[in-house]
Structures are given as structure tokens and as C-alpha cells.
């Protein structure tokens, strides 16, 4: 635990040095990157040790008034999230120095680096706190530093709006958590998590605790319908910050839900069904809305909603397994959720960093203005393609492994002899999510990287420098590694799931089958690659002996094709969105000579904003009373006194009392 503290201190020192050395940014950023990387590795070591040996590492600081003891520590759950945070966070910090370098003279990039370090330490604090007060303190530092990072380009109105919405919602989340802990800790000896776990809340209050946890952590994780702060905030921030927010910070909501489950021990069935339902809604609607987007970063942000949905599906079926006393289903579901958390952190960060490279090289986030970037930015395109295969959940990458585990949990629930078996139907929903995600990422890859440029934006684009490419390739390698050797991720994830489910180590044929399947998945991945290589060589052998010509693309006997004739992202998604345009939130304006479509967020622009504006108008009308004139106020006083007198005079009992 001392090593964790020292590592986090190093990260903070890195952030501080970026701030102090702002006059010489090149040196400051190098020191920043080195210290963050060193601190990240140092702090991750004890976490990896905990994942391997399962021993908890705790430290208890002297009591600080009024919060009681501040306990920090690593158990398996904390360690897993700490590794996730630091592995992706370090890669993102290094990328950030290169990404922001062109803006040194326009904006205070040193502040962004310093805040990034603070945010990383705050997230690490959230996942390692083992007491209420430090948890909430770290939670708030995280919320505020993330807000400041979102506002980095605050000269744009859309950024200020997104920042404001984020700020309001993140505080709604904090209030819910404050209320949850306040209610929970009433019977507890002190404010540590262990003490909370020892108090067994009554039936009614545990219902309130779970509902508040769902509200507070659900907002943070971006669960539909509380997702609407997410796309705006994540698109507004600089790309590497988006990666950190989308890939890592959202996961604190997932961490919180898992922590509450493990502290409560027993969860009711309604909580599991709610999680499952919210997971399905987030998953399907998230990917459906992503398909409708024209903005590359908003699209990726909606995919975070989708993936949070997949995580919730796993968590929901896991909670149902606990509620219905099916330990196998519980362990499988929670394993899938925990594993997908790490996997999503890796590939979503990778995709946002890739999107950042595209934005830097072309100056636009509008997908329909891009095209043909593959040959111009080969390394970025390769990394982004690998990230796409991973997020769609295709073998042989890591996304497949976690979705495979979630599917198994759903299928196993069907064997149960209770209400739990209905959960099996969610497997079809997960299949639909996979199919739509494939459609969405073939759209992104195809329209952005393949074909021809659609505008002048991407013609002169090139790959960014090694400090940007390196982190992307490292994340891609991690995705591939966890896909080829699934035991690396599944092994620790199963242990975490067991500790949350409270299941004593048990031997079950289903879990033994899971263990036995892991080497076969590795074999499947290797067979796939092996066959691919063999066929590729055979094809090369054949082509070396035949004429190979190059020509233009077949235009069906039409004239030469231009970039503008290609299918655009909107036309690509049109048949899928089809008549469900209103569900997808697409607003269309047409005239005899033009067609314009624009995606809105149904919850934000369709519900929240109109209601908010209505409240604002009402408040405006009430302002008539508050005109700021003394004689009016005197009139109000007199009228009130008169009304009271009349009231008192009319009420016999009161009149009698006065006499």
C-alpha cells in the first residue's frame, strides 16, 4: 500500500512539474510523462500482487475529524480497477503530451497535464478508498477535475453547455451517494466500509440504499436514461481526455455498484432485474443512437453507453444469480461484467486516441468529410481497426472473451428451476447489440479510413509522432494479448466475482468447463490466425504466377468515380435506422434541392431541455411579483396580514382560542 501511495505521489509530482515548468513546456512535458509512467507502474505493482495472491493490503490512517478513520486498501476488486485505471491512464497521459503540443501557445496545456494527473490520482483514490469520507472526497475531486478538463476549450459555446450539464449531473450523483452513505452508516460503529458491511440494514433501508446507489452510480456510469451528459462532455473534451473519461472514469460507477453489492452481501431479485433491464436498454439504445451520429467522438461516446449496457447485463444476471441462489450464474455474470470493464477501458481508450489522431491530422470530427485515411495514416488505421474488432466482440480479440462469458451467464440462467430462467431471453438482446455494433464500426472504419477522401480535409493527413502512436499500439497489443491468452483476464476476474458473490470456493462442473475452455479459445484464436497465414501464403504463391493488374474501381459502366459519389456514413446507416428514425433521434430537413439530417439526443434535447426551459419560463412569469418596488412589497405585507386576519376570524376554534 505504501508503494501505491508513493506511485500516486509520483503521478501528482508529474502533474506539478508540468505546471511549474510551464515556461519550458518541452522539458515539463517530458518530466510529466516520465513521472506519470513511473508512478503508474509503481502503484500498479502491489495491485497486480493482490490479484495474484489474493491478499488484501490495507492501511489505516489516524482518525481525522469529523470523518473517522481514513482507510485505504487493495482487495481483489480495488486492485482490478486500480490496474485498469493506471494501465490506460499512463498510456493516455503520454499520448496527451504529444497531442496537446500544437496548442501550447493558444491554451494552458500545462494545466491540462496537471489536472490529468490530479484526475488519475482521484480515480485511483476512489477505487482504493475503504471508508466513506475519503471515498466521497476522492469522488468530488474526480468530478471537479474532470469538469475543468471538459472545459479546456471553453471558448466554444457547445463546450460550455456540455460542461454545465456534466457539472449538474455529477453533483446529482454525489448527492445521491451522500444520502446513501448517510442512511447506511446510521447503525455502523464507524464510517469504514468494513463497518458498513457488518451492519445488516433492515429490509426497507436496504431497498433505499440500493435505489440511491443505482441513481448515484448509474448517473456516473452513463446508464440510459441518465446517459445524456455523456456524449456532449466526452466529445467536448480534448481527445485523450475523452479517452480517460469514457474508458476509465465511467468505470467508477461500475466499481461503486459492485462495491455496494459486495458490502451488502445479499441483493434482492428486483435489483438484479432492474440492472438487467437497464443493461438491455443502455446496450441497444446506445448502439442504435451511435449509428445515427455524424460526429466521430460523439459516436464513440454513445458506444460507451452501449458497453456500459453490456457490463450491466453481466452484473444484472450476476445479481440475479445471487438472489436466486445460483452461484454459478452469479460468478459467471459478475466475471463477465468485471472482465468487460477492463476490456472496454482498453479498446475504448484506443479508439478515442485513434479518433484524436484523425482529428489532429484532418481538423474535423465530421465523419462524412473524411475518407481514405488508411493509406495516409497506416499505423493509426491499423490500431483503430483492431480496436473496432475488439469492441464489436469478434474473435480473436479481448471483447469477444468478455461477451462470451456474459453470454454463458445468460444461457446458464436458463437451466435454473425458478423465475431466473426468463433472463435467458436477454441473450437475444446481446446478439442484437453485437449485430448493430458491427454495422456501426464497419461504418466508421469504412467511411473514415477506406475509400477516397470526401473533402480536402484528409488529403495531406499523416500518422502522428511516436509519442502518440506508441500508446495506441500498446493498447492494441493489450487487446490482442487478452484475446489470445484469455486466462490472463478471466482467472483474476473469476476470483473477484467469487468474492462479490460471497460464494465459498466451490467446485462446479460449469466453472471447471469455463477453465477448460480458456486454452481452447486460445487455440481457436491461433487456429484462425494460422489458417489465415496459410491461405495468405497460398494466395501469394498463386498470384506470383499470374498477371496482377491495377485499374480503377468498377463504376458499373458509368464515368470515373469521385470521392463525393461514395456512400456516406448517413446513407450507410439509413436502411438500419429506417422507419425508426424517431427512436434514433434523427431530425431531417428537406427542400426540393437539399437534404439535411441531424441527430439529437432524445433524452437531453427531447425531454430534459424542454422541461428545463418550461421551468425557466414559469420562473420568469413569477418574477412579475418581484419587481423591486417598495410600495409593492408593502402592499404584499398588508394583503398577507389582511388575509390572515380574515382567516383567523372565520375559524371558530382559533377565534375561541384568541378569546
Amino acid at each position, binding site marked *: 500500500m505504501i508503494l501505491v501511495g508513493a506511485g500516486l505521489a509520483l503521478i501528482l509530482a508529474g502533474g506539478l512539474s508540468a505546471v511549474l515548468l510551464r515556461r519550458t513546456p518541452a522539458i515539463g512535458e517530458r518530466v510529466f510523462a516520465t513521472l506519470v509512467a513511473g508512478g503508474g507502474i509503481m502503484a500498479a505493482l502491489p495491485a497486480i500482487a493482490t490479484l495474484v495472491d489474493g491478499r488484501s493490503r490495507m492501511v489505516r490512517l489516524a482518525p481525522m475529524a469529523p470523518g473517522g478513520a481514513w482507510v485505504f486498501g487493495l482487495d481483489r476488486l480495488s486492485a482490478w480497477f486500480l490496474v485498469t485505471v493506471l494501465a490506460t491512464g499512463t498510456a493516455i497521459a503520454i499520448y496527451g503530451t504529444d497531442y496537446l503540443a500544437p496548442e501550447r501557445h493558444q491554451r494552458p496545456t500545462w494545466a491540462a497535464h496537471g489536472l490529468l494527473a490530479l484526475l488519475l490520482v482521484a480515480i485511483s483514490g476512489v477505487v482504493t478508498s475503504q471508508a466513506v469520507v475519503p471515498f466521497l472526497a476522492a469522488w468530488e475531486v474526480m468530478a471537479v477535475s474532470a469538469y475543468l478538463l471538459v472545459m479546456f476549450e471553453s471558448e466554444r459555446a457547445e463546450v460550455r453547455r456540455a460542461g454545465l450539464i456534466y457539472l449538474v449531473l455529477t453533483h446529482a450523483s454525489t448527492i445521491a451517494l451522500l444520502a446513501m452513505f448517510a442512511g447506511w452508516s446510521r447503525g455502523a460503529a464507524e464510517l469504514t466500509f468494513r463497518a458498513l458491511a457488518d451492519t445488516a440494514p433492515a429490509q426497507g433501508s436496504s431497498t433505499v440504499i440500493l435505489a440511491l446507489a443505482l441513481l448515484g452510480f448509474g448517473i456516473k456510469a452513463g446508464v440510459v436514461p441518465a446517459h445524456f451528459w455523456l456524449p456532449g462532455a466526452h466529445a467536448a473534451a480534448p481527445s485523450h481526455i475523452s479517452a480517460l473519461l469514457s474508458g476509465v472514469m465511467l468505470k467508477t460507477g461500475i466499481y461503486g455498484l459492485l462495491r455496494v453489492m459486495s458490502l451488502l452481501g445479499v441483493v434482492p431479485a428486483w435489483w438484479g432485474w432492474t440492472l438487467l433491464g437497464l443493461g438491455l436498454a443502455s446496450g441497444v439504445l446506445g448502439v442504435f443512437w451511435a449509428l445515427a451520429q455524424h460526429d466521430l467522438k460523439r459516436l464513440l461516446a454513445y458506444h460507451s453507453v452501449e458497453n456500459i449496457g453490456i457490463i450491466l447485463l453481466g452484473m444484472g444476471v450476476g445479481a440475479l444469480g445471487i438472489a436466486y441462489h445460483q452461484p454459478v450464474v452469479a460468478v459467471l455474470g459478475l466475471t463477465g461484467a468485471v472482465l468487460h470493464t477492463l476490456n472496454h477501458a482498453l479498446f475504448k481508450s484506443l479508439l478515442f486516441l485513434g479518433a484524436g489522431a484523425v482529428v489532429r491530422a484532418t481538423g474535423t470530427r465530421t465523419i462524412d468529410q473524411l*475518407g481514405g485515411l*488508411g493509406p495516409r495514416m497506416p499505423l493509426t488505421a491499423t490500431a483503430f481497426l483492431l480496436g473496432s474488432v475488439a469492441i*464489436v466482440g*469478434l474473435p480473436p480479440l479481448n471483447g469477444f472473451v468478455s461477451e462470451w462469458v456474459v453470454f*454463458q451467464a445468460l444461457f446458464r440462467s*436458463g437451466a435454473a428451476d425458478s423465475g431466473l430462467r426468463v433472463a435467458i431471453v436477454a441473450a437475444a438482446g446481446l446478439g442484437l447489440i453485437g449485430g448493430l455494433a*458491427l454495422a456501426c464500426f464497419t461504418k466508421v472504419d*469504412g467511411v473514415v479510413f477506406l475509400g477516397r477522401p470526401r473533402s480536402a480535409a484528409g488529403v495531406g493527413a499523416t500518422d502522428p509522432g511516436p509519442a502518440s502512436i506508441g500508446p495506441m499500439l500498446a493498447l492494441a497489443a493489450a487487446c490482442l494479448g487478452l484475446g489470445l491468452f484469455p486466462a490472463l483476464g478471466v482467472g483474476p476476474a473469476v476470483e473477484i466475482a467469487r468474492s462479490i458473490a460471497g460464494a465459498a470456493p466451490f467446485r462446479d462442473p460449469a466453472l471447471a468447463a469455463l477453465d477448460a475452455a480458456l486454452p481452447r479459445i486460445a487455440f481457436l484464436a491461433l487456429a484462425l490466425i494460422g*489458417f489465415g497465414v496459410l491461405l495468405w501464403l497460398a494466395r501469394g504463391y498463386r498470384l506470383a504466377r499470374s498477371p496482377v493488374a491495377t485499374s480503377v474501381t468498377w463504376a458499373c459502366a458509368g464515368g470515373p468515380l469521385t470521392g463525393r459519389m461514395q*456512400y456516406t456514413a448517413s446513407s450507410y446507416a439509413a436502411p438500419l435506422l429506417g422507419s425508426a428514425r424517431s427512436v434514433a433521434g434523427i431530425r431531417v430537413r428537406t427542400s426540393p434541392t437539399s437534404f439535411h439530417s441531424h441527430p439529437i439526443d432524445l433524452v437531453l434535447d427531447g425531454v430534459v431541455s424542454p422541461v428545463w426551459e418550461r421551468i425557466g419560463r414559469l420562473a420568469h412569469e413569477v418574477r412579475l411579483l418581484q419587481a423591486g418596488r417598495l410600495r409593492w412589497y408593502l402592499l404584499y405585507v398588508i394583503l398577507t396580514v389582511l388575509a390572515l386576519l380574515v382567516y383567523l376570524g372565520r375559524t371558530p376554534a382559533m377565534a375561541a382560542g384568541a378569546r
Partner: protein
Amino acid sequence: MTASPYVSLLAVLLVAPALPGIATRTKSLLTGRRGAPVLQLYFDLAKLARKGVVYSRTTTLVFRIAPVVLAAAVLVAAFLLPLDGRAPIFGFTGDLVAFAGLLALGRFALVLAGLDTGSSFEGMGASREVTVASFAEPALLLSLTVLVLVTGSLSLGGMLGAPLAGAWPVQAPSMVLAGASLFMLLLAENARVPIDDPATHLELTMIHEVIILDHSGPDLGLILYAGAVKFALFGTLVVSVLIPRGRFDPWIAVPMLLGGLVVVAVLVGVVEAAMARLRMDRIPQFLVAAAALAGFGVILLLR
């Protein structure tokens, strides 16, 4: 370890190219034409393997590598099915997800290759292909869910093997529904009428064919062969559900499978002769119907 899984895989891989030919021949005969030889695809494959290729200057490595990824994915998917009615070459718990994932990987590669050409026709085909696939995915999973519920097994080897035969007398309605749903999926996933028309001549009306407009030579051969094997794999799913072969000796089960595949191909031909292609916006309804059939099967089992 017996040889029968390998022998049956080899047999299916050899017979696969005949199946589209049988379907087309059936359609021709029923509509009063003579039609192409049943073995036409073998001739085509042999010819394509010897030919050179033409690549568009717009295309990248993605275009060249896609046929290889597609063929490798379909081949590995074939390993997971118990073709001899007992055991696959290798299987594991939850390998049905891997089966669906491998087919999706092949589609992912092919669709990107289409977009790589920068042609609006191929973009259109790609868009339609992913639309069909998105609606097909839940139907496939619901059909497999029926089998999971009936057999209690999570691997294709178990689901399609011996336990299935025992389930027939008890769960016949669900099994029939799952089989029907899988047959509809076979039509959709293999670009047959009423979803797509392999014989159409106009690029605007194509789905699958238009994605591979620019592929030529051995690349096109790989795509066509992978398509034939995929047809055989879906055919195997249908045959295995409707005629469980787990109780037969493998040396009887394999010829039964091949006979069943021929019957499925003939049925596809009959469907093609009997009905026209659906309008593009009706396709989702067809696939939702397939999902609904399998869904009813699930409901019957859950009640």
C-alpha cells in the same frame, strides 16, 4: 479419438460447392428452364484459381486480406459443428458464441473490403448486408437458445449431438420452430431469395453480390468457396435440429448429413422458384418473423 470428425469435415468441405448448384438447378427445372450444371461452382473455382487479378488503385491491404479472413473464419467455424452427429473437431462450453462470432468476423472483413473500393454500389451492398445481419443475429441466438434449453448444453457438440434425439418426443413444437427459424436464417445469411437474389443482373438490387463486384481471380474464388461452406454450415444446423443423428453410427450419420444437405439445397431452390425477392424494406420483417418463431419456441420451453 476417432477419425469420423475429420472425415465428415472433409466430406462437407468437398460437397459444399455442389449445394448452390443444386439449389439453382432445382429452381431452373421448376421454372421450365434447363439451367447450369450442378457442378458449375467447381468449374468456376478451378477457373478462378488459375486467373490473374485486377486491383483498384483505391483499395488497400484490407481489400486483399478480406477474402483470406473470411475463408479462415468460416473454416474454423466448421471445426465447431459436430458434423458426424457426435463430436466436433474441437468444442468448448459456450462455443456457439464463437460460432456466431467467427461468421460475424468474416462478414466484418467482407463489408470493409466492399467499402475499401470507394464505389457507391459496394457501399450500398455493405450497408444492406450489415442491416440484414443485425436483424439476423437475435434470431440466430434465439434458435440456439431453444437448443440450450432443450439439451442443457452450452456447446454445439452437446446441443446438436445425442441429447437432442431424446428431446424430440417431449419438445417437438419448440424444435420444429427452431428448425424453421434456422432455415429462414439460412436463406438470409446466404443471400438467397427472398432476401437477396443471386441471379439478379442489376447492381442496384443486389446485396451480397454487389459487395464483391471488384474482387477477381483467386480472391473471388476464396469468397465464393467460403460462401458455399457457410451455406453447408447453416444447412448442417437445420439438418441436425430436424434429424438428430446422435444415435447413429458415424458412418451412417455422415451420409445422412450429406443427404440432408442436398434436401435443404433442393428446398432452397423450391423457395426461389416459388417466390420473388422481398422489397428491401420488408426484409427486417422477414427476419423479425424468424426471431419470433424461435422466440415462441423459447416461450414454450420457459412456461
